[in-house]
């Protein structure tokens, strides 16, 4: 818990690689009512693969950093692979074990992405 706000997370939060909106992409969004987090992902899909994706919205550092990390992971991946992904893969890259309340924040991006690939 002490290590939650370590450099990797703060870096992704303050200097995200994938923040923005892809015009003409497919999109999905979700809100985490208890926190006020809202996240939208837009993505370009070619031949069953995500070729580019961006996220936008507002939320805590954990939810936004996790979304950026997630997009790092999925760009280039097949939609069928994304459907099988679980939150623990993000947690591994974040390098911390999350408490139940912070899992909600960290998994928000994946929740949105799953919605998007199922459209």
């Amino acid at each position, binding site marked *: *818990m*002490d290590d*939650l*706000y370590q*450099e990797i997370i*703060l*870096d992704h*939060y*303050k*200097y995200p690689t994938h923040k923005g909106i892809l015009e003409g992409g497919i999109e999905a969004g979700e809100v985490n*009512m*208890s*926190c*006020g*987090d*809202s996240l939208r992902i837009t993505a370009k899909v070619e031949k069953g693969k995500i070729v580019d994706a961006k996220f936008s919205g*507002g*939320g*805590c*550092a*954990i939810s936004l950093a996790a979304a950026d990390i997630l997009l790092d992971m999925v760009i280039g991946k097949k939609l069928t692979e994304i459907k099988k992904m679980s939150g623990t893969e993000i947690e591994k890259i974040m390098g911390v074990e999350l408490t139940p309340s*912070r899992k909600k*924040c960290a998994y928000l991006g994946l929740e949105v992405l799953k919605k998007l690939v199922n459209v």
Partner: protein
Amino acid sequence: MADYKKLFPLLIKNPDLHYLDSGATTLKPQVVLDKIMEYYTEYSANIHRGLYPMSERATMEYENVRKKVATFINTKHESEVVFTSGTTASLNLVSRGWGEDNILEGDEVVISEMEHHSNLVPWQELCKRKGAILRYWLVEDFQLVMADMETYIGPKTKLIALTQVSNVLGTVNPIEEIVERARKINPKICIVIDGAQAVGHFKVDIQELNVDFYAFSAHKMYGPTGVGVLYAKASRQLQMSPENFGGGMIKEVHKEGASWAIGPEKFEAGTPPIAQVIGLGAAVDFLSGIGMETVASHEKELIDYAIGKLEKYSNIRVLGKKNNRIGVFSVVFNDEDMGTAHDWSSILGSKFNVCVRAGHHCAMPLHNLMGLPSGTLRASLGIYSTKEDIDAFVEGLIEVRKIFEETDNG
């Protein structure tokens, strides 16, 4: 300042803890825990039934709390004190038990923009069911716009439901003035007050307030969880239907139908939370022993100290007024990219031993109104709070900022 921390076993066990979440729930003093334990170990019988001494004692202790609460909040009759499971249950009991029979299509119900969801959603639902109109009293500069009162409250207004103290802003609403003006417009108006954030902080006098219903929880005033009170004026009780049916609330039951007990029992079906009610009695004794004036002045000193300290930081914004408030402080940072209240609260908890709450504090409309959809960070005081706790909170908050400020690109 008197040291009240030594009266709370949790704080004795955790001397480095800065518990600043009393608005959510207060810690429990030893005397309350002892009284609950005494019930379970010495006379743990059901009430209102047994004719053996142990049950008689349980009944006496339970009913004695009704008397204590009545004296504590100065009701006219002891029978106006109804035990519920908490403020939320109390407010739902009014909306169902009174509202269902007395609010009709086209009637108006007025609530404010600073209500906790538990004093908002029950009315929203009632109005939906009955075809009544829900009107929101505007909040500006962290308080109700008093000049506008007569534009919200008119001859069609059947009910006003307001909080006495905002759980986000700390603002104390001028209930007596509101009641007086509202009764001039419509003498029959039903006035419901959410007192969850008031009763444990200053003297509440029901007869002076002259309201119809008043709701509060034991666990926000040093008592146990699972029990609360609905003050229901005697004349209003006669207009109410019970919400729950079963044992203890009936007069007679026949195969064809039943009739109800008269008095608070009508609303207390089933075995009540006996131990918790008895614990509430001990909490009332605890507060009366200190004296509500002492409680209020202890908190006032800390409020002034906290505001003075927070004001020095231009990048911290404190919501709420300086005066006429209780010790609930919701803060945000003035700039972007500093995370949200959830981040700050999580770091304050794990690195600085400071317990504060993050989010909407069950008041989403108020946060949207203030343009703070990600919520706020809330610190709230209790009798055991000290200047050291406030120092730890403010200093921790400055350190939290540094964590976000010091992240370099790359």
